[in-house]
């Protein structure tokens, strides 16, 4: 049973348009959410995070939206660039036992074509 779900395994977007990657979670105890980006043969790199006390966090071209009632978050990339082509992982964590161990989704492969 996956606690963090990324239901779209892949997404194709034209350069300059908006990319929207979606993530759903089932554990209502999750209170911190992160997005990671992964290129082939590399480890994931941290992209952006959001605390459950917020509903939006923005960093340059990247914005994460959190809808706690729907247990849903999304990552918006505007404008999309070919260099954004990568696998994007959504992760969620909670202070279970005092430790925040991120639980990851299966990832969405984003392809931005010129």
């Amino acid at each position, binding site marked *: 049973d996956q606690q963090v779900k990324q239901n779209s395994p892949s997404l194709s977007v034209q350069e300059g348009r908006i990319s929207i990657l979606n993530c759903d979670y089932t554990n209502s105890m999750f209170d911190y959410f*992160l997005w990671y980006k992964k290129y082939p043969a*590399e480890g994931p790199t*941290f992209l952006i995070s959001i605390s459950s006390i917020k509903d939006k966090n923005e960093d340059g071209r990247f914005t994460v939206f959190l809808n706690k009632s729907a247990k849903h978050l999304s990552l918006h990339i505007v404008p999309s660039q070919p260099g954004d082509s990568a696998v994007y992982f959504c992760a969620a964590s909670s202070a279970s036992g005092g*430790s*925040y*161990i991120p639980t*990851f989704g299966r990832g969405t492969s984003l392809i931005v074509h010129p």
Partner: protein
Amino acid sequence: GAGVSQSPSNKVTEKGKDVELRCDPISGHTALYWYRQSLGQGLEFLIYFQGNSAPDKSGLPSDRFSAERTGGSVSTLTIQRTQQEDSAVYLCASSLGFGRGNTEAFFGQGTRLTVV
């Protein structure tokens, strides 16, 4: 180095052999995680170390898997009597630990394990 370093980057082993995977976390990071990614799957949590606390081993898939962290720094993940289903990329990450704002984990490049 400045980042998380894992070795070897690739490992091919015969079924039934033991393997050891090494992780050098970022200096000063008290939290260390091991994950694995099997083909077509997400990142599966294996084990978590935080400072001198007892590790969280809840993600280890079987008793063939073990890990240790010596001196609060370098960690070794050991897989005994490897099976073909152990084939995956094993990722190590570290973070400052404690508190939500310090949990952005920095990952190494991973060790690709292939059991033949």
